Structure formats: C-alpha cells, structure tokens
C-alpha cells in the first residue's frame, strides 16, 4: 500500500471568494494579525498498488481528471508512506 497526500488550491490569479470571506471573518473576530488566507483541499489517498511508479502516474492522472479542475486550480502531491 502506498499513501499519497494531495493538495489542491485555486490558481493565484483566480478570485478566491471563500478565502477572502475566511480572512475577513477571522480578522473581524479579533485575529488581527492575519494578513491573508489561502484555503484549499487536502486528500490522503491510499493506493492498492505497491509499485511506486504506477502510483505516481495514477496520482497525477487522478489530480488532473478529478481532484482538481485544471482550468482554475493547481495541485501538488507527495508520496507519504508505504
């Protein structure tokens, strides 16, 4: 079993209404040292293959075809454990 950690974020030039709302709300709640927030999604995915090359290929394909929308999002993944 190989586990992969995936992070997906909106591209920096895309309007990120959710992060803006979070930033405004936490500052308004008194966390006034917060300058900027960038929210994203995190996935821990366990693959049933032991072949690292296969998993890496599949992780990239999974990100591009499902976990992220390539038009507006970026993704990164790391193999975290075997």
């Amino acid at each position, binding site marked *: 079993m190989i586990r992969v950690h995936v992070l997906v974020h909106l591209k920096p030039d*895309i*309007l990120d*209404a*959710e992060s*803006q*709302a979070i930033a405004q709300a936490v500052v308004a709640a008194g966390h006034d040292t917060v300058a900027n927030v960038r929210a994203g*999604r995190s996935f821990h995915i366990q693959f049933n293959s032991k072949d690292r090359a296969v998993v890496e290929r599949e992780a990239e394909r999974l990100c591009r075809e*499902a*976990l992220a*929308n390539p*038009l*507006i999002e970026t993704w990164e993944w790391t193999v975290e454990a075997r």
Partner: protein
Amino acid sequence: MSAKWAVVVFPGSNCERDCVYALRSVLGQDVVEVWHRDVLPKDIDCVVLPGGFSYGDYLRTGALAAISPVMESVRRFADEGGLVIGICNGFQILTECGMLPGTLMRNAQRRFRCADVHVRVERSGTAFTADLLAEGDVLKLPIAHGCGNFFAPPELLEEIESAGQVFLRYCDAQGMRAPGANPNGSCDAIAGITNAQGNVLGMMPHPERACEAILGGTDGRRIFLSMALSAAAT
C-alpha cells in the same frame, strides 16, 4: 410538437420533478426519468440535466456527477448530435465533464442568489431557438445558485465569444448590459453557452420554473419547445 425527453436524476438533484412537470404536464411532452447509474434509453430526442446539488456539491459543484455512469451515454448521445440542456447544476456538470468550456465558480458576491433576472438571447437559428426565439429577445427567468459565476481564462473566453457560443447574457429589462444586471460576476455577463457544434446548452437560469403564468412567467417554454421543434426537424 411532442418529443421524447430524458431527465437525468443524480443523488442530490432537486429540480428533476419541476422539469418533468413542466415538460409533461405543461408542455405535453413524453418524459422519462433516468437514474444516474443507468444508461439513456434508445429513441430519446432531448436530454435534461436538471438543477440541484448532485452528490452534495462534494469536491466541486458537478464534479462527481460528471464522472457518474450515465454521463458516458449522455456524451455519446451528444456526439451523435442529440440535444442536451444542462440547467444550473446541470450546466456545472457539463463544464466539469468537458462537454462545455469554462467553469462555474462561487458567486463573486459570495451570496446565494435567488431572483428573477433578465437574459438576452445572443443567437438566432440554433437548436435552442428554432423559430420561437431570436437574437435580441429578452427573457425573464429565475435563478437560484451559489456557484453561477461563469469563468474562462481570457484566451478561452475569446474563443467562446468568437465562435458564437454565448447563448444567453444577463441584461436589464431592456436587454442592455449593466453592472447591476450581472447577478454573480460572470465573465462577459454570460448566463448560458453552447458547445461548438450547437447541440449542447448549459444555462444557469431555470426555464422549467418559468413555464406557467401563475408562477411568474412563461419565457422558459420557448427554450424547451424550440428543442422539441428542432428534434422533430432532424
């Protein structure tokens, strides 16, 4: 003019009954509902992907519905020239599965918008206008969405515009573009687009909720009836 319609139902769809009611009871069409795990029946003329919150909007709006089993047959149906309309969440599903360009992002004002809006028809002579609608016509239709902010990067937007794929644009009651008339921040005030072939339409407003005067208007009928007429003509 009666056509045979399939209304696709995903877990979390919530406008499928409105669509079936408008098509069957108001417009006299022949309608079947198709569960997302099934395939489209044969001899269908038009397909509706209805609004709602398919798969609870998990991952991204429309993203999981886009990879559900029924979509393979919807794609095949469209590839063969069949007419497909995606309404609201249905529009989001069509962009997620790549049958339409662009994407629908969270409304720029970060608010769920539920209101009647005006949209201007941008093209005549399409399968969705038949001879019931023409370029410049202004329709009053309801919207109800949190993620209706149409976005495409500049070069893709230019491609959509120059190919004449913009079908509906938010406008004021006179049909003019106005900042206050764009309810969600959509690029170029786009409310609906077609694919390059012109047989797949995605739109954020709900035509099925505008098919009876008692409910506030009948402008939605013209889109559905245009599809029925176009299907009969092929």
